[in-house]
């Protein structure tokens, strides 16, 4: 038997424990330094959050890796993307995590990312594998991106993210398999057409598909600032995808001072975030929100019925349902990878082997160029070796960020050689 004061203390303690465990809101790291091009500041912020991470390691590893890649630190960026990718693929959750995720906040569970975030983790891992001279590992990453994008709750959708297929084609060709490369280009065409049919931005059949066969240099640009999750102003259980206003819209590419073209949209990240297999998800309520509302309504009805009929069983059931509805925190999980771009864009070029100066600038909707975003690279394209099964393919990836002068000024980059050895 408990005394009334003991009972009151226990009840109070249990509720305080419950609240402490379930109501600590996740706090995002400041991301503005990254978008302002203050990459050293962004790096410090993301590193600190990575060290103190609790359930969000993969998120900050991805944001730090993005920052390091923009600084040209290829190996560490690859390692972080790779490790984050393994964690995003790990669905095991402890019993405590499951209970916390059910009864506590949605963001108390380990962050694994949405399908579009997992697919983009694979794509960036693959792009860095290209830079490390490992086109086979790049192809493996792009294949993984296809699996991750298609991985939906009811498994009825195929991947509609064309960059996975298109990049896999480049990687396959670089690894020496032209037939596989052509098959991937066909898949990319279908995926792109499907995505545009359901509302993705850009052309349904960008010219890069036709340019693939005759090109040896792919310029891939991560353009603009990507989407983020926000809670609905009136309904905190509703997740909305917020797409910020864009400062730049496309990249213009010059080789040895000659204009060679402007990048085209191949992947619409905001569209990927808002849809699954073409089905629009914006404003979808979390499952727990539905449960909480149903449990609350059911509990009230049962209690009223129980009082009317003087039925103890109904009263008990109603009480438990109401308690459950009160304990369940249905606030939406707003964690998202906030250094992603708005779109993935590409330009395929045929450039003679040897050393070239590659100059890239970014234009806005008004056609104006912001010089702070411009940068140049010295690239060395390998000779085309007819005797080798492997193709002399090079991929250069750029991000639309205002870079400090030291990173803008003629960065020396050797375009990756095919057939990188272990």
């Amino acid at each position, binding site marked *: 038997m408990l005394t009334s004061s003991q009972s009151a203390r226990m009840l109070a303690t249990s509720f305080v424990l419950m609240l402490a465990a379930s109501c600590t809101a996740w706090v995002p790291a400041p991301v503005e330094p990254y978008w302002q091009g203050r990459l050293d500041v962004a790096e410090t912020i993301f590193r600190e959050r990575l060290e103190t991470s609790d359930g969000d390691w993969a998120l900050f590893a991805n944001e730090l890796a993005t920052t390091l890649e923009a600084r040209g630190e290829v190996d560490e960026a690859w390692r972080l993307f790779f490790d984050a990718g393994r964690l995003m693929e790990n*669905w095991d959750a402890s019993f405590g995590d*499951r209970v916390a995720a059910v009864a506590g906040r949605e963001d108390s569970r380990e962050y694994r990312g949405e399908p579009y975030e997992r697919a983009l983790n694979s794509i960036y891992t693959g792009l860095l594998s290209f830079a490390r001279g490992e086109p086979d590992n790049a192809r493996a990453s792009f294949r*993984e991106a296809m699996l991750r994008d298609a991985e939906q709750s009811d498994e009825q959708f195929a991947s509609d993210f064309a960059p996975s297929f298109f990049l896999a084609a480049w990687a396959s060709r670089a690894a020496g398999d032209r037939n596989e490369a052509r098959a991937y280009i066909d898949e990319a065409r279908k995926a792109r057409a499907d995505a545009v049919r359901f509302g993705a931005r850009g052309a349904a059949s960008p010219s890069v598909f036709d340019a693939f066969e005759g090109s040896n240099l792919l310029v891939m640009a991560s353009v603009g600032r990507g989407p983020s999750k926000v809670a609905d102003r009136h309904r905190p259980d509703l997740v909305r995808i917020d797409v910020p206003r864009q400062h730049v819209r496309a990249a213009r590419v010059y080789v040895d001072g000659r204009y060679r073209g402007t990048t085209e949209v191949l992947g619409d990240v905001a569209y990927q975030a808002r849809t699954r297999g073409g089905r629009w998800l914006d404003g979808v309520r979390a499952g727990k929100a539905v449960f909480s509302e149903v449990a609350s309504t059911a509990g009230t009805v049962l209690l009223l019925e129980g009082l009317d009929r003087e039925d103890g069983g109904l009263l008990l059931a109603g009480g438990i349902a109401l308690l459950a509805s009160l304990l369940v925190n249905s606030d939406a999980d707003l964690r998202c990878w906030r250094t992603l771009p708005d779109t993935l864009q590409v330009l395929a070029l045929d450039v003679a082997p040897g050393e070239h100066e590659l100059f890239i600038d970014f234009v806005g909707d008004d056609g104006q160029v912001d010089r702070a975003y411009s940068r140049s690279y010295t690239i060395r394209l390998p000779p085309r070796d007819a005797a080798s099964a492997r193709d002399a393919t090079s991929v250069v990836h750029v991000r639309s960020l205002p870079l400090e002068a030291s990173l803008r000024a003629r960065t020396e980059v050797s375009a990756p050689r095919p057939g990188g050895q272990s």
Partner: protein
Amino acid sequence: MQISLPRAARLALTVSITLSLLLVIGCARSHQRVDPDVDDGVGGGGTESQDVRAMAEMMARDLLAEAPLDASAGTPTLHILALDNSASHPIDKKMVVEMIRTRLVRHGGGRLRVLNRDAATLQEIQAERRAKREGAVEGAQKKALLGSDYVLTGTVRTISKRGRDSMSSDYWVYSFVVVDLESSEQVWANEYDFKWAGNKPAIYR
């Protein structure tokens, strides 16, 4: 004053306390040293530490025990050419190759000489040789760079399945072959495979 709580209140109290304790216990974190050859309990799939270690150990021992390496003209030399990832997931290729190379050297016992032709290492070796020959650094012995008698190549493949109810499986096969560089004969081959299957829990769907 002692009171007897109604049954419903006792049940609610018990549920509440149990959930609170589970939440607190569930959030606890600790670190401990674990055996890299056994499952670490972290979960997930892919090529894990025990796979890399077991595979490298098995490859080295089997190759040394089974491969008919011709030693008539002296200790045969072997160069690890490449590990080609044809799977649907990236791997740390350098780590796998380095572990195989280390175990081949360790278990070789003088029966096999393993060459290091990693691009970066080879560049450093050549720079050091130049420095020695030019007298910039000390070193009496002058040796020619060894050519390779055999090459070891590997391929990684996966069969990945994604099914209903968020089920997934990945079958991994690491295949290795040794080829005689003079005759192009494949003198040895072996494979190492493993499979992962699982599903996405409801809290992530």
